[in-house]
C-alpha cells in the first residue's frame, strides 16, 4: 500500500471528525469527534514514520495519545461541571455569554 492511501484515509477521518465537531450538540459527542481528528493525525504520523520519515513519528504518536488522554480527562471534568450547572450538556444551550 502506498503512502498516499494512508494519508487519504487519515484525511477522511479528519474530515469526519471535523464534521462531528461542527454538528454534535452534545459535549461528549464533540469529544468523540475530536478523538477522531486526533486519530487521523496519528494515522498520518504512523504512516509517515513507516514510509521513510524515521522513528520520530511513532514517538509523536505516543505523545499525542497521552496528551489526548489528558485532554479527555479535563474535558469530561468540564462536561460534568456543565451538567451540574445546567442539568444538560447540549453545548448550544449554553449560550449565556455572547455579543
Amino acid at each position, binding site marked *: 500500500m502506498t503512502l498516499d492511501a494512508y494519508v487519504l484515509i487519515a484525511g477522511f477521518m479528519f474530515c469526519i471528525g471535523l464534521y462531528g465537531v461542527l454538528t454534535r450538540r452534545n459535549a461528549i459527542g464533540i469529544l468523540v469527534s475530536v478523538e477522531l481528528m486526533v486519530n487521523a493525525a496519528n494515522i498520518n504520523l504512523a504512516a509517515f514514520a513507516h514510509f521513510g520519515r524515521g522513528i520520530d513519528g511513532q514517538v509523536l504518536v505516543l505523545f499525542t495519545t497521552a496528551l489526548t488522554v489528558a485532554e479527555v480527562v479535563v474535558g469530561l471534568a468540564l462536561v460534568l461541571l456543565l451538567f451540574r450547572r445546567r442539568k444538560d450538556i447540549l453545548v*448550544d444551550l449554553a449560550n449565556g455569554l455572547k455579543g
Partner: protein
Amino acid sequence: MIERLLFGAVSTVLVFTALMAVTTRNLVHAVLWLGMTLATTAMLYILLQAPFLATLQLILYTGGVLSLMLFGVMLTRRSSEQDGVMVGNESNGRRRALPIVAIMLGLLVTAVGRTPLANAPVSPSPTTAEIGKRILSTHLLAFELLSVLLLAAMVGAIVLARRKDASLEGTNDPRERAAALPGSRPAGAPKEV
C-alpha cells in the same frame, strides 16, 4: 495484494465506524463506535508495522479514553433519560457543516494528489526498544513534562468534578462570604464537607 485487500477492508471499516460515531443518535453507541474506530486504527498500525503503537492504541484509548467517556455519559444523563436506554446525541447544523467539510476533504484530496507520495520508500520498522531509547533521550524532557501535564490534568479535573466541595462556595450572601474570609471565621460556621 493481500496488504491491499487488508488495507481496503480496514479502511472501509474505519471510515464506516467513524461516520457512525459522528452520526448515531445514541451517545452510548457513538462512544462505542468510536471504540471500534480506535480499534480498527490499531489494525492499521499493524499494517504499518507499528505494533508498539497498536498496543498503545488499544490500551490507552480503548481502555482508558473509552471507559472515561462512558463514565461521562452515565454521569450526565438528563433526568428525562433516567432509564439510560437512549442518551441523546442530536446533531444540528448539518447543512452548513457539510460544505465546509466537503471543501476540506476536497482540499486534502487535491493536496495529496498534487504531492508526490506514492513512491515513498518503506523504512525498517523501529523496535520498541529504539522507540523507548528515543523517548528517554531526545524527548526525555517532553516525557517528563507529560507527567507534569497528567498530574495537573488529574488534580484539576478532580477539583472541578468534585460534586460540591464547599457549602460556602457559590453563595451570594455577602455575610457568609465575609465569614469565609481568612482569619475572620465565625465560630458557628459550617464545617468542611
